[in-house]
């Protein structure tokens, strides 16, 4: 791949999908260097500019590159599970052009130097753009506020203790209140820790039969309900990560109706799988929050459809074999998701729940808007971060082909419909599928 800025590139014969403007038409897009300089159904009516390289999309969809707002990186600290380079490869293979990484690295991203380290390392590999969150509390211990103001100035997009919930109500109150001073968002892993402690899968009949300790759905509801009251008290901005239950959808819906500044996301496992995926102690299906009941799954789909759930993120959590090839209770939580984010989400389109535009909105425009990123739009002057995909092409999830260093996908072997053909970051093709 050349590091020189490319010249003009004309993408012709594409189905343009731009949720920001509501555009869903056949047409073309022209980039020059790192930015989009033309887009529209009639762009190439008079022919493709002579000095432009021509890429025929063959009728495939051309959309803004995906913005994945919840990715765990192994780097720094757990490079045997994932590095910035391998995550970058996996991202672009999945059509992701921007990803935001959680601060629960080693060392924790809770100071300005670490934020700058991640930003500098990520720039080097030139694949998907990497943005960091920073910790809400020092060392994600939930006891003392991190330097939220200075971290925001250094480039932290929002604040979260990652996979740990902010346990103390007083700390959450202060965090929301302090963050509101700077207009930044607190992202919560909504799970009451004392109720989840020791649990390894959804509490219910299956957990009972398998003899596994359960995490009840109310663990999520309790934390969300508490937090909604704190948001109302402080006027802070709050985002609930990966909601997984029917009740959570209802709580967020009510909060939005009350006018609270609340948003939420979910991840593909919570609308595409249910607890039965745990089956015979399959540790790849051990996720946090746990896969829930079929009732909950349907409610998540409904929540997406109705717009209660704003965003879909991969919740990419790489784990090596040593962390997963263990008795279920001892295995680590989490699954990789960058490379299946788009294809699994397309099921919502194929099943008639979301339009293609809505799919792209939840995967790209909505997270970019929430986090204030200049991404997620096919707009003249915007960065040429693009994904070209065929929404219909059939295939199967094959972790052996994953670019991610870890292969722990809960979707292992799943038949899918849809394929990423090309991913473009800042005008350069960073992924081209072998067909």
């Amino acid at each position, binding site marked *: 791949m050349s590091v020189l800025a490319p010249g003009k590139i004309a993408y012709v014969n594409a189905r343009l999908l731009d949720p920001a403007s509501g555009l869903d038409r056949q047409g073309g897009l022209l980039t020059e260097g790192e930015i989009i300089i033309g887009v529209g159904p009639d762009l190439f009516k008079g022919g493709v500019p002579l000095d432009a390289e021509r890429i025929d999309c063959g009728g495939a969809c051309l959309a803004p590159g995906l913005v994945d707002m919840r990715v765990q990186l192994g780097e720094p600290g757990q490079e045997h599970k994932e590095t910035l380079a391998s995550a970058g490869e996996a991202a672009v293979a999945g059509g992701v052009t921007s990803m935001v990484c959680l601060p629960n690295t080693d060392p924790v991203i809770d100071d300005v130097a670490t934020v700058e380290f991640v930003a500098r390392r990520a720039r080097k590999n030139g694949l998907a753009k990497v943005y960091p969150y920073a910790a809400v509390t020092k060392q994600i211990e939930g006891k003392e506020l991190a*330097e939220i103001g200075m971290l925001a100035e250094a480039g932290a997009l929002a604040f979260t203790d990652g996979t740990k919930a902010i346990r103390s109500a007083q700390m959450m109150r202060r965090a929301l209140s302090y963050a509101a001073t700077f207009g930044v968002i607190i992202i919560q892993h909504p799970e009451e820790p004392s109720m989840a402690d020791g649990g390894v899968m959804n509490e219910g009949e299956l957990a009972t039969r398998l003899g596994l300790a359960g995490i009840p759905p109310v663990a999520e509801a309790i934390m969300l309900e508490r937090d909604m009251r704190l948001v109302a008290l*402080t006027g802070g901005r709050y985002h609930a990560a990966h909601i997984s239950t029917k009740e959570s959808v209802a709580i967020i819906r009510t909060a939005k109706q009350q006018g609270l500044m609340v948003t939420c996301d979910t991840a593909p496992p919570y609308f595409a799988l249910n607890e039965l995926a745990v089956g015979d102690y399959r540790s790849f299906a051990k996720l946090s929050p746990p896969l829930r009941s079929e009732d909950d799954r349907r409610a998540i789909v409904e929540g997406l459809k109705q717009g209660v759930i704003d965003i879909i993120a991969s919740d990419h959590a790489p784990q090596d074999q040593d962390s997963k090839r263990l008795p279920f209770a001892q295995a680590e939580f989490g699954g990789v998701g960058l490379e299946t984010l788009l294809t699994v989400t397309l099921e919502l389109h194929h099943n008639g729940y979301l339009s293609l535009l809505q799919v792209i909105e939840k995967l790209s425009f909505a997270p970019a808007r929430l986090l204030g990123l200049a991404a997620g739009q096919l707009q003249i002057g915007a960065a040429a971060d693009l994904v070209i995909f065929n929404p219909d092409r059939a295939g199967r999830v094959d972790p052996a082909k994953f670019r991610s260093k870890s292969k722990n996908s809960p979707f292992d072997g799943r038949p899918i419909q849809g394929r990423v053909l090309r991913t473009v970051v800042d005008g350069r093709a960073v992924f081209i599928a072998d067909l």
Partner: protein
Amino acid sequence: MNQDLPAYAHRHLLGIEGLSPLEISYLLDQSDAYVEKSRSNDRKSALLRGRTVINLFFENSTRTRTSFELAGKRLGADVINMTVAASSVAKGETLIDTAMTLNAMHIDVLVVRHPDSGAAKLLSEKVNCAVINAGDGAHEHPTQALLDALTIRRRKGHLDGLLVAICGDVLHSRVARSNIHLLNVMGAQVRLVAPRTLLPACAEALGVEVFHTMKDGLKDVDIVMMLRVQNERMKGNFIPSIREYFHFFGLDYEKLSVTKPDALIMHPGPMNRGVEIDSDLADDVERSLIREQVEMGVAVRMACLDVLTGNLGNGGPV
């Protein structure tokens, strides 16, 4: 209205809230006279000869206690300092016991500082002498507000119409509360500037405008009052660190650049240099009134002792 009543007709000085503009102006006028007297060679008078003033301090204080002590002594009173470590007493009952004991000794003025809000009021209900609140918890510190007002009035000529920003730990500050009441009633306009974690709930209800950035909050103000931030609140409970606090809320020349060009800076002391205020700025005689505030403190306390002991004599209303 009885024309014989003095313009400040209360037995005690427990707080600024509830005082009228007339009463405040009267105390400030009296204080003004004492400034001149303190600057002359004839500082000492015999006005309070035979009167006993007790400084009863349940909290460490050097500046305020010394200021009251000096004020009392310059007026010829016998001044006794009692410092009680608050942690060593079981509060409540002991506080009242202490008051009753002192009351039995026929004292004239009790100057009280206590870490609990309302302590001065509680004492005042149990004694026959006059009580001056020298700071109760996060409630009031009336003589500080009076000395701040005197300092401003002498520099600017008036209080009404001024735009005053009070910056920092308002949540825990009795100085802020007293100043808000005084400035509001005297016709000044008050802004609070602080991170949300250092503001009390419903701060707006005190009749102020609330800001969360120095840039917005200090815009066009005449006076910047900085508040002290206690170190123990800097360790991640209310704010993440000293470094971050100074970066966003510490007063330096850059943040001061949006105020009126002749804006003046105040601080109740003791200052944390490099935490809430830049060290050079604190020492800048063109901008900083910090040393002048200390001088005004003695004058204000002399005036208060004078007025309150005068009221004891005529048995005026409480």
